């Protein structure tokens, strides 16, 4: 189980927390990539990759995941209006890292109505566009277990991560000028627990564990769906971003766009790929030469020292035409 001290990564989100306090099992030595830090020291060990599997065919759209996410991360999503849809809040926000998206689909092949409900949030890409686009050293890190995490102290709020994300996930807070998204509950995973959303999910549509186990489980689910007539059921673990550590089982894997415009073939924007040089330069400008070569350990706890001028420059570099919001 997750609390087994011999395991480097938890295998389930179901187990209860240990009684005894546990030391964190996720640290600087587990970082394999960090934004704007090309010369990062190699990790001291290799963690077992983890993954969160979202089986949309088991999802009842109850929003317990949203509730658990807000509770665990102590965010305060706004009490908005009803706009004639079930999505609330209406979109991902700096206070709401995950969102149930609902789409009504009249299936022309069967004549049946389908209500496709998908939990949206960070996919934790193997090849993370946000991290590649980010100019702030150490603001986005990737651990060897696959989690892509934002280190808010290092974030300059430039919004490059939004542009770099092929799934349109990060959101910049107008209050703190920092970017937010799902952390895959890295703070829970660090102490042997699965993400809060997976823990709360009543039907275990959201499950968490080693990616290998999750793939095997997903394959079983696909077989069950095929036996129920969903011939195109499959796994959504897109290669364009190197695979993801949050992945889906879909009834219609051939048409991911049915699920509130889940991208068919997500790829990092070529512009972002081409930004690497610029990024590095900006990173140097923003953080100062003194930061270069400093160990990540120091960066993780560093306060945001970006000047207003730097921030202004960064804002100007943000894509003026962000990808449209999916509804």
């Amino acid at each position, binding site marked *: 189980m997750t609390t087994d001290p011999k395991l480097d990564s938890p295998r389930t989100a179901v187990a209860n927390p240990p009684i005894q306090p546990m030391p964190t099992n996720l640290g600087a030595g587990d970082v394999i990539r960090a934004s704007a830090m090309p010369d990062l020291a190699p990790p001291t060990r290799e963690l077992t990759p983890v993954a969160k599997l979202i089986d949309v065919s088991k999802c*009842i759209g109850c929003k317990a995941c949203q*509730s658990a996410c807000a509770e665990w991360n102590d965010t*305060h999503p706004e009490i908005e*209006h*009803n*706009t004639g*849809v079930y999505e609330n809040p209406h979109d991902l926000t700096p206070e709401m890292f995950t969102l149930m998206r609902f789409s009504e689909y009249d299936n022309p092949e069967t004549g049946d109505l389908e209500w496709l409900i998908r939990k949206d949030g960070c996919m934790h890409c193997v090849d993370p566009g946000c991290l590649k686009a980010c100019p702030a050293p150490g603001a986005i890190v990737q651990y060897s277990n696959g989690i892509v995490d934002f280190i808010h102290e290092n974030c300059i709020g430039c919004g490059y991560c939004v542009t770099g994300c092929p799934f349109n996930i990060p959101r910049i807070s107008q209050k703190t000028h920092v970017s937010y998204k799902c952390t895959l509950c890295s703070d829970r995973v660090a102490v042997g627990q699965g993400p809060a959303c997976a823990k709360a999910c009543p*039907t275990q549509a959201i499950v968490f564990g080693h990616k290998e186990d999750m793939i095997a489980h997903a394959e079983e689910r696909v077989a069950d769906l095929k*036996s129920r007539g969903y011939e195109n059921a499959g796994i959504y673990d897109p290669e364009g971003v190197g695979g993801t550590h949050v992945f889906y089982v879909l009834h219609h894997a051939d048409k991911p766009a049915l699920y509130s415009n889940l991208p068919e073939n997500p790829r990092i924007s070529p512009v972002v790929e081409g930004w690497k040089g610029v990024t590095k330069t900006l990173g140097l400008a923003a953080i100062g030469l003194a930061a270069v070569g400093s160990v990540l350990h120091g960066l993780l706890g560093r306060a945001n020292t970006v000047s207003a001028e730097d921030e202004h420059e960064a804002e100007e570099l943000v894509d003026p035409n962000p990808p449209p919001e999916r509804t």
Partner: protein
Amino acid sequence: MTNPWTDIKNTDLVIVMGGNAAEAHPCGFKWVTEAKARRGAKLIVVDPRFTRTASVSDYYAPIRPGSDITFLMALINWMIQNDRVQWDYVRNFTNAPFIVKDEFGWSDGLFSGYDPEKRDYDKSSWDYVIGEDGFAQVDMTLQNPRCVWNLLKEHVSRYTPELVAQVCGTPKDRFLHIAEMIGECAAPDKAMTSMYALGWTQHSKGAQNIRGMAMLQLVLGNIGVRGGGMNALRGHSNIQGLTDIGLMSNLLPGYMNVPTEAEPDLATYMSSRAFKPLRPGQTSYWQNYSKFFVSFMKAMWGDAATAQNEWAYHWLPKLDVPTYDVLRMFELMKAGKVNNYFCQGFNPLLAFPDRGKLTEAFSKLKLLVVMDPLETETARFWENHGEHNDVDTAAIQTEVIQLPTTCFAEDDGSLVNSGRWLQWHWAAGTPPGQSKRDTWIMSQIFQRVRTLYQDEGGILPEPILNLTWDYADPEEPTAEELAKEMNGRALADVHDLKDTAKLLTPAGKLLANFSQYRDDGSTMGACWIFSGSWTEDGNMMARRDNADPDDVGLFPNWTYAWPLNRRILYNRASADLQGKPWDASRKLMEWDGEKWAGYDVPDIAPTSKPGEVGPFIMNQEGTSRLFTRGMMRDGPFPTHMEPFESPIANVFNPEMRGNPVARVFVDDAEQFATSDEFPFVATSYRLTEHFHYWTKNNRINAALQPEFFVEISEELAALKGITRGGWVRVWSKRGSVKAKALVTKRLKPLQCGDKTVYVVGIPLHWGFVGAARKGWGPNSLTPFVGDANVETPEFKAFLVNIEPATGEAVS
């Protein structure tokens, strides 16, 4: 529930009809997901809306609100026509072979004996032919044309797939597909489970909806088996406990009855409660009624209840009407006949129908006391909140006292879940502010009332002055003391009834279970069905052993299930007449040659030979009932009845409105509308983001579903010029609300014959206090009428009109 939640994983087919399990019971719904994933089970949803349950179903069919009986009778008809009947089960475990009186009949939508003046039936013809031996006559060959089976066959023959299409608006092919899927479960090794909730109860014929499915389940042989059952999903965490301990005006704990005026003494009261078996050798467990009753009376009045004073029978109230249900109380309140009203954990201003009438009624009280952990609209009924509660505060003279109480997490005690599990819980938090436990508040009131009687006397002071109150701290009984009182205790040594030398429980000790209850005054016990939950071995409700031998899904040592820790009711019916399980892979109980053995506690005496004692021990027949004799006010079989407000006349009798025996108060009858003025059918329901009117006090729940809306089809939106996210006004003959419009494909218009029926869906979570945006509940619109048997209000089918409204559309 006949079966526990955990048993749903054993099913082959789930039908969710009259409920919305995924949304209203998401945690319990996990067992449906388990059955689907592990057993390959299928899920059918029949609902006016394509719900979130439907979104994970294998097959969905729409149905017009309030037409469920037609659908269910048509399913039974289809099973009979297509020989999808578990014959051995029907013949032996139901009353199919029982011969019914010649006078019984049905025509024009009504059963024999109807009196339109009284709005009631003379039910004398709805009964069996009793032979000279005193037993009901049966024909085990089912050939007699007057046997229940043939009467049922004739009764349901009118319900064809074509009638379903016409009355329910369910396309014929959808109905037939569902019938085929269900028909497979007539095989002895297949089981279907029925999960239902307020979608069936909140109708003027709600109890008959449930009867309909229960009968279908019996025809299929799905009661008493693993993966089967009639599973009522209770809407509050302890509403099962509420009915168990008799918190109804006409009930005593353990489903005993409050006496009526027609029962002036104990002998008369008991004379209609002899429950003599109707067939030879049957158990008829209610024959023990007097033991449960006398033990209850001893729990109430201790030494003051004696054989000489008929165990204090004369201190019990005697009903002059069938019930003082909530609807009747508000009718009386409106008429100025109620001075004081205590509202304990109850928010009727939003939870009961016709809010305008409720406000008028509350305004006539002298005193309203609200005991609740939360702010409620009821406590603020007098406060003007603009359009959301437009009252003239100055004109209301009612004094309102709010007594803040603790919530479940701040107190020890037990909650009874839908599966009849009494689960003990421990206080997890300290009560905030000046909130007090309900037991403390009630004790304080009791002490003061008793002092008043002592000092000043009064009419009939004895029940108050003699009430047993032997708690360690009379100011506040503990949950433990109350639980032990419900379990029961020996007042004198209790001996075995047959082997009288054998001492079962010495005086002063807790009883092992209700088989030790006696009617000679030697035992006390406040709720017989709970007996066994706290014995000399300790608090059985506190058990947390999650072992489940052979993974059968029963978890026998997890907490305590009433009765007798039995997890599946009627479990003897899981085996055939020889005592072999119908389905070897789903064994529950088995006759091992000497006794019943298996995973559960048998219903019948463990040594009762198979073939002799029937599984349905609470019935005088020993069998289940396809025909309920005179036990329900509106018929021994379910018959199609329209809602009181319907766009369609009853196909069997166009003159008949609603349920012909449901109680209707004069003023309310005038408030029933017709479809000329109110052309659209409305229905009400919960959303999964909220729990009733509680969670709108919580910011996160409020963020997840912030604002009152109604759901309508794209077609109705087009017809009325309504835009998605725009404001609409919805009104009935009783009131008007303003909401956001959620335009959806999931609520398609229904074609009922030549009539197109548009449905307006109205969720129920908004009011004028709390963190969410101010709104209304559907009860501003709903009619003031209840089920003919139990008075559950008709919230699920009524008429409204709708139009675009002014107000800024916010996006």
